[in-house]
């Protein structure tokens, strides 16, 4: 049995276990066991992958496997991973693991919550392992739909509005996506749905011109591409903690991953035509998100907008089409996933205690809940790109890589994008100064307690990952850039 298929199988087994579970402790047991298994699997996969590469495996994808599913449409259950998907799998496993602990005390309907949560993660894992357009799309939608119930039932604030908006906008994206996928399939001569094989075929240019924007926008909606990002603030603000973590941490990465693996890889000529348009859009979302975050008063809104900015940077880097920038994009996905998950976890924990996320009503938390506060500071520093934490590595790779682009327009965009790091500092320090420092004015808050053990597990795990990536980036960077190579060379032919 292919190891990759385990990534889908284990969550399904977890769902069965949850279905069978009767007591709360059983539910938790199933979740912890399952998510730890997934985490170990992911780590093992990474080690194994690096080992094979070091052993001289030169195929574009490893652990490949393909089973014919729907012969008439050449739909296979085809899996395979390269450096990019491996790190994404690792990221997802980490966040599912920590998310489990972050929603340890969630009430009510804990069992159902974890059922949908696991279904969501099934979709995520499935998406990252599959190389078949159809299965990719299928898992993509599997990952989307549970959001509705997760936000609608367990969310807070205007949850019903937010859930509906998020679901419909993302589904709108996937409508574009589906038409694009059909376009790719029939454009490539309707012989295969396998991405790697289609990449070797050639899609007629006029079709690429039509279907590239469809696919790019389709994934871009999930990647918070301006102006299709507005689901993100409301959605994240209303979602329960772990869901925000998983959604901002992993789901938004599906967008970038898909744009790279499907839109750009398969339709380079379309990219050549549309690249500049989307580059402008992404540049806008990088700066725009940062500026919008400055004036928000809800912690989650601030984070949502900063996610818009950072995920915008991912797409931005991809559109730069140099090997380094694309590597940077993947690193950025990884780092943003980790640190934004950390952020949302901490915000959720603070909210769970103070019952408010309004920065104007919080102050002096450093004295009251030092652990969470320090974690928040660390997350903030990572977010504003402090060396030694993940953000710096990713952003620098992106900027250096983007600046490698010979075209002056691209470099101008790069310089514009770099300004976002200053604005990031502004809003991060604003929040830190407002809510953590100073003296606490609200007598209610003085009674609050610091993190419990389950919360500590989640936070520490994430902090360690953020710092680990920030201190020892070279192995990730090497693995990724090796896998980015073939795609970028494919692009460079036409650009």
């Amino acid at each position: 049995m292919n190891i990759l298929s385990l990534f889908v199988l284990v969550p399904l087994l977890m769902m069965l276990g949850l279905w069978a579970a009767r007591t709360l402790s059983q539910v938790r047991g199933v979740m912890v066991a399952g998510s730890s298994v997934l985490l170990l699997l992911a780590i093992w996969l990474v080690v194994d992958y690096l080992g094979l590469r070091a052993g001289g495996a030169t195929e574009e994808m490893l652990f490949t496997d393909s089973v014919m599913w729907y012969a008439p449409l050449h739909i296979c259950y085809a899996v395979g991973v390269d450096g990019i998907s491996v790190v994404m799998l690792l990221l997802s496993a980490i966040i599912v693991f920590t998310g489990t602990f972050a929603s340890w005390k969630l009430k009510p309907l804990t069992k159902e919550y974890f059922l949908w949560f696991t279904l969501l993660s099934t979709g995520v894992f499935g998406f990252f392992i599959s190389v078949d357009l159809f299965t990719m799309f299928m898992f993509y939608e599997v990952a989307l739909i549970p959001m509705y119930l997760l936000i609608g039932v367990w969310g807070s604030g205007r949850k019903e509005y937010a859930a509906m908006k998020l679901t419909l906008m993302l589904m709108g994206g996937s409508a574009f996506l589906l038409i694009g996928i059909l376009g790719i399939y029939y454009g490539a001569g309707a012989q295969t749905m396998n991405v790697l094989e289609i990449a070797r075929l050639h899609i007629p240019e006029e079709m690429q011109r039509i279907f590239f924007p469809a696919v790019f926008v389709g994934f871009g909606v999930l990647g918070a591409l301006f102006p299709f990002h507005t689901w993100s603030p409301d959605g994240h603000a209303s979602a329960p903690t772990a869901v925000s973590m998983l959604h901002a941490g992993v789901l938004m990465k599906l967008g970038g991953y898909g744009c790279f693996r499907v839109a750009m890889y398969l339709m380079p000529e379309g990219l050549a035509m549309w690249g500049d348009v989307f580059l402008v859009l992404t540049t806008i979302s990088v700066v725009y998100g940062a500026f919008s975050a400055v004036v928000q008063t809800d912690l989650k809104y601030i984070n949502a907008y900063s996610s818009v900015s950072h995920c915008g940077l991912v797409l931005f880097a991809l559109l730069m089409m140099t090997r380094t920038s694309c590597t940077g994009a993947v690193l950025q996905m990884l780092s943003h996933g980790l640190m934004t998950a950390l952020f949302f976890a901490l915000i959720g924990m603070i909210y769970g205690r103070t019952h408010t996320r309004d920065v104007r009503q919080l102050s002096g938390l450093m004295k009251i809940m030092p652990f969470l506060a320090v974690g928040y500071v660390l997350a903030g520093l990572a977010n504003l790109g402090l060396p030694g934490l993940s953000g710096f590595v990713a952003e620098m790779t992106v900027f250096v890589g983007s600046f490698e682009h010979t075209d002056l327009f691209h470099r101008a965009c790069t310089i514009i994008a770099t300004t976002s790091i200053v604005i990031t500092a502004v809003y991060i320090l604003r929040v830190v100064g407002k809510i953590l420092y100073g003296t606490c004015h609200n007598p209610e808050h003085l009674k609050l307690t610091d993190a419990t053990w389950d919360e500590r597990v989640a936070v520490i795990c994430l902090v360690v990952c953020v710092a680990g990536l920030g201190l020892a980036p070279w192995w990730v960077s090497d693995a990724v850039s090796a896998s980015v190579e073939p795609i970028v060379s494919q692009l460079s032919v036409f650009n």
Partner: protein
Amino acid sequence: MNNYMSAVLSLHAELSLIVVLVVVFLADLFRSRPGGRGLRVLVCALMLVQVLLNLSPDTRELFGGMYVNTPFTSVVKSILSAGTLLVFLQSGEWTRRPDTAIREGEFYVITLSTLLGMFFMLSAGHFLIFYVGLEMASIPMACLVAMDKKRRQSAEAGAKFILSSMFSSALLLYGLSLLYGTTGTLYFADLPDVLQSGGLERLALVLFIAGMGFKMSLVPFHLWTADVYQGAPTGVTAYLSVISKGAAAVALAVVVRFVFPALTDDWSVVLALLSVVTITLGNLMAVLQHDMKRFMAFSSISQAGYIVLGVLAGSPAGMASLAFYVAIYVVANVAVFAVISTVEQHGGGRTDREAFNGLYATNPRLTLVMTLALFSLGGIPPFAGFFSKFFIFAAAFEAGWHLVVFLALLNTIISLYYYLLVVKAMYISTPAEGSAFGSPIHSSRGVRLCLALCTLGVCVLGVLSCFYENLFQWADMLPW
């Protein structure tokens, strides 16, 4: 003699159905006390047998080509009878009610006779058979719709149905007469050779499509649908929404594809237009509805629009995905109606959406089934609906209808919106004051079995590829 026997045996689908019909009729005649479970068990068992019986591996012609039975049509027939079986299973609650208990047998007999009509319509090789089948399918349907004698709405629905169906069939017949006038034959086999693309033929084509569009309730021939669905007994509505619609769709596909090849451009344009309009209008209207049955009526209208995409493709892939779509649509829709009728029977006849508020708190299983079915209708993976939608889109896309497919896709967002409204009501909304379910509903065995089967179908029909692949082969084998 042997040849004659085998020829007759190739009618086995219809024959077996007639046998079932007669047996049920007699059983109903001679049964001791009404309201027992025996009759339903009997009919369900017989239908089960019938479903398995009428699968036929090869193509047979009968009566000089007036009747043609192909593997494809026969599998479609099995799908239809399976659907009917599901309807029968879930109609138990309703037929047990004292005012309907005496008419239980009639319900089965009439339903089966409409089914028989559809069978003939499906394997017609001549417009006469086709027309007879059509009418056999629609006249008894009016009786079914008006079954609840005491309910005013039921009577009203019946009147609307019979009159508008007579109107449409009159026009259809007029179209056929024009066709006959221009070609001189009504054999499917002969028509393609003699049919030119003249004005009268076009008119005939439009009239024919309108007639079928009435059965499938395509916009603008759909207006009877909502009222009839709302008025009819819920079990009948389920039957109406899935079985007759599906049969009409397949029949339409067969006829336009094999009888009007000369007019392909014309009918494809017409159907493309109809499908887009139907999907959009159905969705828009569904957004406004509060009564669940009316809501499902409009949802089924938009579903009909998607089905037409399969006809539009005009290819084996199109036929296959069409049949596949119908099968999965049957399963999902019957499940939804089963839940609706259960809630109706136990909730004091309420069918508005508010009746479902907070259903999850008391009836998790029921709600889960409903959710899965709705997701399937909305085309959410990994449920079957996703696959059927994908295949039907692929087929239409392959035929080059890119824009149509795109518009249909955009419409899926709207449809998802109103399906989610129901989900929201069940999971998120708090139950209104005096809502009928403080306690879990105890639905009858039949309903539970039906729900179980439907859920199974919704979950596995998509994931198991063999079903679609066989359909594809059979669609490829179609004659003419």
